[in-house]
């Protein structure tokens, strides 16, 4: 996961972060984050509020500068993206507030002129499906409507790489499902690479092929979602078990002491590898975890 990589960017890599560290006014936001994403991956980034998800996305887009490390998007350094590359990237911010004074129709037309692959049929269809009139001004929209407009705008550029920051936070369940289907259709048909942050775990479980979990400003889990049940598990060890004398269990991701004195750990192993010996200790219990369990177990 955090292996040193050469600075040559492979043609297949859509996103690459090399040991990114970022502080705001002395406060740590990201600590040594390394990540590489190949084309066609749908990656879900989870983490609690304030874990650094938005900052990571903004660094990828070159909207912020890391204190240490480097980011690359579609083979170019994030801090020097050419217009040609920017046109291949769709971005949906968490709180879209640009062009608030404009009418929806004017804004979409204005933005569309800057993108050669702009799909005006998609825009018209989406506006109709979501029943949004082009004559309204953006500032009059509800948060949910504003988020829909931002999604239409981000998808209409037919991006090779789509970056979505909490795209479903203000959507109702029907609109959310529409969005997930759209993401899936694009991944299936055109191999669009999708990087989205969310704290709606069930959305991520459906559409993502890979999950990255940001906690305490660093990546604590980076796994293929299909293999998660094989690679991660919860281990419960009874109170006072001598098996826990080791300061760190092999593959330990997190550790939590329960009120009854027992200890629960999240442990990880490579696909096909064995669990550490401690799982056979007297009274120890190994449970399968779904993503939400994992999230809560680590983030609590």
């Amino acid at each position, binding site marked *: 996961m955090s292996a040193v990589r050469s600075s040559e960017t492979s043609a297949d890599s859509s996103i690459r972060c090399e040991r990114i560290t970022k502080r705001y006014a002395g406060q740590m936001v990201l600590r040594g984050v390394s990540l590489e994403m190949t084309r066609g991956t749908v990656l879900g980034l989870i983490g609690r509020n304030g874990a650094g998800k938005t900052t990571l996305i903004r660094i990828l887009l070159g909207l912020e500068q890391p204190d240490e490390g480097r980011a690359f998007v579609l083979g170019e350094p994030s801090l020097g993206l050419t217009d040609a590359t920017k046109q291949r990237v769709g971005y949906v911010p968490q709180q879209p507030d640009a062009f608030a004074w404009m009418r929806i129709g004017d804004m979409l037309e204005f933005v569309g002129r800057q993108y050669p692959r702009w799909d005006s049929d998609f825009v018209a269809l989406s506006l109709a499906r979501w029943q949004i009139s082009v004559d309204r001004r953006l500032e009059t929209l509800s948060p949910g409507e504003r988020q829909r407009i931002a999604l239409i705008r981000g998808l209409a550029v037919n991006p090779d790489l789509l970056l979505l920051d909490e795209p479903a936070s203000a959507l109702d369940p029907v609109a959310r499902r529409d969005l997930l289907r759209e*993401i*899936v259709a694009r991944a*299936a048909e055109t191999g669009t690479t999708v990087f989205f942050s969310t704290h709606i*775990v069930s959305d991520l479980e459906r*559409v993502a092929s890979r999950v990255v979990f940001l906690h305490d400003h660093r990546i604590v889990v980076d796994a293929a979602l*299909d293999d998660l049940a094989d690679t991660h598990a919860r281990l419960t060890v009874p109170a006072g078990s001598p098996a826990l004398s080791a300061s760190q269990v092999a593959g330990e991701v997190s550790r939590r002491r329960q009120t009854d004195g027992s200890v629960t750990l999240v442990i990880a192993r490579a696909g096909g590898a064995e669990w550490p010996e401690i799982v056979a200790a007297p009274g120890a219990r190994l449970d*399968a975890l779904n993503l939400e369990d994992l999230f809560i177990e680590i983030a609590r």
Partner: protein
Amino acid sequence: MNADRLTITPSATEPIYRQIGSQLRRLIASGQLSAGEELPSVRDVAVQHAVNPMTVSRAYSQLEAEGLLTRLRGRGMVVAQSAHAILSPEQRLARLQPQLADIARQARELDIPARLIVQRLRSLLEDAE
């Protein structure tokens, strides 16, 4: 087959590709999917259920490796001619489950001891051999 015949539960601990695989195995074992029947495309299943396309194709590839599905040029995935024979006796037995459950219920209602039912069933099976 229609993509909406599958049920997907994202929050289950069973990964989605295995959920798809075990449902298809059951449908084949119970004869609800017969040899030569076409499966929905990876895209259709993915979009219908809003799940990752690679997850769907992993399920299909696994059943293909097991010999239950065959990839046909231009038609996508179909149930293999030999699919039925590949399934274990237990999986084929699953197809008789409703009838067996019905017999068990009626035997209880008629107050017939289990021993007699098993005896009769055995002699029927031996006659057939």
